[in-house]
């Protein structure tokens, strides 16, 4: 599979605060990636830098093999973006907004937009200023899907949606993921959005992608280990994130399971137990 996005040594600072620090990342076609990060970790900045909405100060970003600052028209047509904030023109109706947006693209699917409008119960004659944040979010997603993108970048798309609309939206994402060769990146701080839809997880922390792997590997490698051992025995636990000792019990969280080391434990008369963690807990442990 080919690279859709490759980022090399990207750095970005606002005033003196370093937001992105020497970040490198590769995204392959067909991936559905959940980008996790705390508030203010720089998720939006990263996504906007990819799209050249924010200026890249250091480093290079390539989309479909082209530098993102000189992206060709053909490739720009393949990208859909849902911004975090609604900055759309308030005095246009949704229908007008769609026609406006359409004029910027070479390719546009009216059927797709009409279908989404019907399924998501969007009233095209309403004005942007009359919509609730949740309704507006749906409109923004619809606009991003209009050009039938091959790369879809969503910045906190489900934040304003109610539980039903959120399910609908996630369902739409799954449908999209079933199609061939579409790559989706969506940032969120709500881990449950990721668990169903994404096949990969990236964690952005301290200006870097500190973790990027398949969701299943992610869940299997960051686990809670409990040891029962003789009192006072010190254990040199590999990949340790955090540990806590109570008498003859040690509870710890590791970022990867070293099976050969665990096998050795039996000879030292230590019994162990692996407890799997939910994604939310994993995220908390990694960005602690």
């Amino acid at each position, binding site marked *: 599979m080919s690279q859709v996005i490759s980022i090399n040594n990207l750095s970005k600072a606002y005033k003196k605060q370093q937001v992105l620090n020497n970040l490198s990342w590769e995204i392959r076609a067909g991936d559905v990636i959940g980008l996790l990060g705390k508030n203010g970790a720089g998720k939006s900045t990263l996504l906007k830098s990819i799209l050249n*909405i924010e200026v890249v100060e250091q480093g290079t970003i390539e989309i479909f093999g082209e530098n993102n600052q000189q992206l060709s028209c053909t490739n720009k047509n393949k990208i859909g973006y849902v911004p975090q904030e609604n900055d759309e023109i*308030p*005095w246009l109706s949704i229908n007008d907004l769609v026609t406006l947006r359409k*004029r910027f693209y070479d390719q546009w699917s009216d059927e797709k937009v009409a279908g989404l409008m019907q399924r998501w119960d969007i009233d095209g004659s309403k004005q942007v200023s009359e919509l609730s944040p949740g309704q507006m979010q749906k409109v923004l997603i619809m606009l991003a899907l209009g050009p039938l993108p091959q790369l879809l970048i969503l910045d906190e798309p489900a934040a304003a949606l109610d539980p039903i609309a959120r399910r609908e939206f996630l369902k739409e994402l799954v449908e999209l993921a079933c199609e061939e060769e579409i790559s989706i990146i969506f940032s969120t701080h709500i881990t449950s959005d990721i668990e169903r839809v994404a096949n990969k997880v990236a964690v952005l922390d301290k200006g870097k992608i500190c973790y990027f792997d398949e969701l299943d590997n992610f869940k299997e490698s960051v686990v809670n280990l409990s040891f029962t051992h003789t009192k006072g025995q010190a254990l040199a636990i590999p990949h340790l994130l955090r540990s806590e000792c109570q008498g003859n019990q040690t509870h710890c969280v590791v970022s990867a399971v070293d099976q050969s080391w665990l096998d050795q434990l039996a000879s030292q008369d230590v019994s162990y137990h692996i407890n799997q963690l939910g994604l939310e807990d994993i995220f908390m442990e990694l960005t602690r």
Partner: protein
Amino acid sequence: MILKILTHGWLDRFFVLLFWLGGFSGQFWLDDPQKAFLMSVITIITANFILYFRVSMRLVLLTNADFRSVLPNYYRLLKRSLVTLLVVSLLPALTLISQPMVMLSVMSLLLILAVLLVALTYQPKLYFLVIALLLMPVSIEEIAIQWGDLLINVGSFSLPLIALLSYVLIQHIERFKSNRKYIERMLLVSSGSSSMDLVSIEETNYNAQPAWRRWLSNSHFDYYRSMLRSDKAMNKLQLIEVACQGLSSLHRYSYFVAIAVALIIALVSKALFPSFEQISLIMALLSIALIVLGNIAPFQIISKRRAQLKQLASLPLFAKEKSFSTSFISYLFKQQLKLYGTVILANLLLMGVQQQISSVVIINMLLVCVFFMATSMLIMLSAWRSQTNHDNSAIAGFLGIFVVMSITVMIGVENNLALWTSQLFLTAVFVAVGLAIAKISQCRNRVFA
């Protein structure tokens, strides 16, 4: 803290201080004690008027705020702040006016003004009464000559009574309520005024607008809506233009309307008063209104739409390098040409009504407009390109240039000078144009930071 809220806004504070300081400096400047005295009275009343006007707006908001019943000691602190504010606002009168009787009556006048303004903000209907009073066919000069001394006497002796009245009113402040819808509008105006935001309407719900405003902006937007709905292809400039329109944009026809209204006023007044000499005042007012609304409002709308425009720039239509920035700058340039073309045309028409137009005047006007255009492009582009928000300093820059240019033009008109003979002015124009060109070429790669 409450005092801070009541007097919030750097622009208002600036003007209040300016007038108070003006009153003080008048004492030293003016040799004629009669003139100095008159000036301090006028400046004090103006400064306090601005102060009371703002405070009364904020007061309405504070007495209707939701947390008034939640916070402890809310009204006690509010009342104390109000008393402090009133006392402080009377201090300039106390120090500046040397005649005791006049001083006392000015203080009563100020207190009445304060009470009146607060009453007006709580009950906007009272405005009709004030307008009716202003329109009464009575000459103020006559009153001043006939009743002046008596009024001063009555004013000074009734000061204790008026002070007591204001104090009692402040003590009953919790009983004042106002209309909900009216308060929302007030909130809008006062939040806009605190940061010199001409376009604070942009952020409000469209349906909260008064009907006439909705009609007006819709009649403007309908042009763009029909443009979108028609099958005709739109060029890049037109698409950018659509994205830059807001509720507070100048109406499409406002240029024509402005010129027409000014012409009608000029013609009518000339017919009624053949020796009409106030044409320059009409010219000045018209030019100020056009330049402020045509420059600051679009600047602020675009500043608010920055994120949206940046996103549009990333779409396929603008895939070619520099494509968006070139179109955007051409759009901006087109708007500026339209604006200053209108200003020049309007002024020429108005002047034509009154007198002959000399080539000196035309060249002066052209030079001033070139200077304005260069500086405003420079200010706008610099503000948009910087990473941090410099919108307020940009507005201050606009106002500063405006004041400087007004004085220049006034001097020029007064002495019938040809501005191009002034080396200083020419240098300023050249520097401004040079800087603007440099900024534009810098922005050709990217307009927004």
